[in-house]
């Protein structure tokens, strides 16, 4: 049994030590907006304001630099340690497992195709770019 724990420990140490940046091979970090407007993405990402507040600023122009960490082949607890939420530093991460991210994007892209056919704009391109980036990773 102890060999299993040591093996797991070595894997985790390897993940944390790779390439100078923690978990660089097992995560991608996006802006919140890479998953489309909040009306579309809030179910998987949470609200588009700081997670430690019940509401946002009263200024409609305020945007929150929230980041989304897409991860794979690594426990969420380790991801959270590498990308911690720190209120004092206004550091707000949302965590999305790769499979869930791709499942969300598949549905979102279907809606975006309908939407763009009627409305125009670049939402579909944005979502497809995010999807391609995630698909190219973690293989």
């Amino acid at each position, binding site marked *: 049994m102890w060999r299993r724990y040591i093996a797991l420990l070595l894997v985790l140490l390897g993940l944390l030590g790779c390439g100078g940046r923690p978990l660089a091979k097992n995560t991608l970090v996006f802006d919140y907006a890479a998953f489309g407007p909040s009306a579309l993405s809030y179910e998987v990402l949470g609200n588009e304001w700081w997670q430690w507040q*019940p509401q946002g600023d*009263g200024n409609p122009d305020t945007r929150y630099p929230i980041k989304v960490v897409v991860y794979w082949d690594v426990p969420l607890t380790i991801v959270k340690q590498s990308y911690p939420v720190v209120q004092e530093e206004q550091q707000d991460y949302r965590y999305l497992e790769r499979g869930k991210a791709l499942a969300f994007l598949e549905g979102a892209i279907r809606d975006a195709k309908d939407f763009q056919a009627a409305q125009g704009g670049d939402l579909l391109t944005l979502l497809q770019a995010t999807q391609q980036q995630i698909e190219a990773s973690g293989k």
Partner: protein
Amino acid sequence: MSDLFSKYAHQKMLDLYQHHEHEVGSELYKEDPQRYAGYQRTNCITYALNCISYGFTRAGDNRAAREVWKNIVSGVNVISYLATEHNWECIYINPDTRNPEDGDQEHPFSWYLVKKYHNYYKLPVSFVAVDYRPTQGEGVTSPTPLNAKDIALLNLIKFGFGISRGGVHTWVFSAGSVYEVHWYGIGDDLYEKSPLVDFAWLSGVIAVPPETAKQLRAAGLTRSFVPSSPV
């Protein structure tokens, strides 16, 4: 019950809007707690909950007056509670569903979702009041036709609770005007009243008590969808 609620929630809304010498914006307070030690902290959702809980209390529902505060975590949660437990209904608002003034896809996309799924951030939408201020300007190649009818019907609302961008901002509404609190303000900068037609947050929903929804239905406010059988 609902009429009584609206009467008193409206009363509290005006009272705080006119008399708030004892209050300070919650974020301003954080910057200098000693300076503002004698003040009560407020912000946009606190203002709304002060009005709503007061309305419930004066209408004789003390339990609801307490329960609503448990949903302070977000404006969506507050409306979800009001809709589920007290049959409130939502009106989706959007001044221009095709050409948002700020260029943000949040507004046309939330309209797309309302049309397709009849909800806004998972809140069921009963009515829509849209296209009441079509965007003008050089970048607009295909202006949205003006719809003045539905916005005018919102003057029937004595008290409503509004959210924008899924609850980034919350506010209260009465007779065509938005009443809001700015959490970095104090004195004259703390509260603001503005016509909904000019409200810079653009899309969102206003939740109203069931009696108000009944009036809006009777008056012909556009429905989010037409039910197959009469309601």
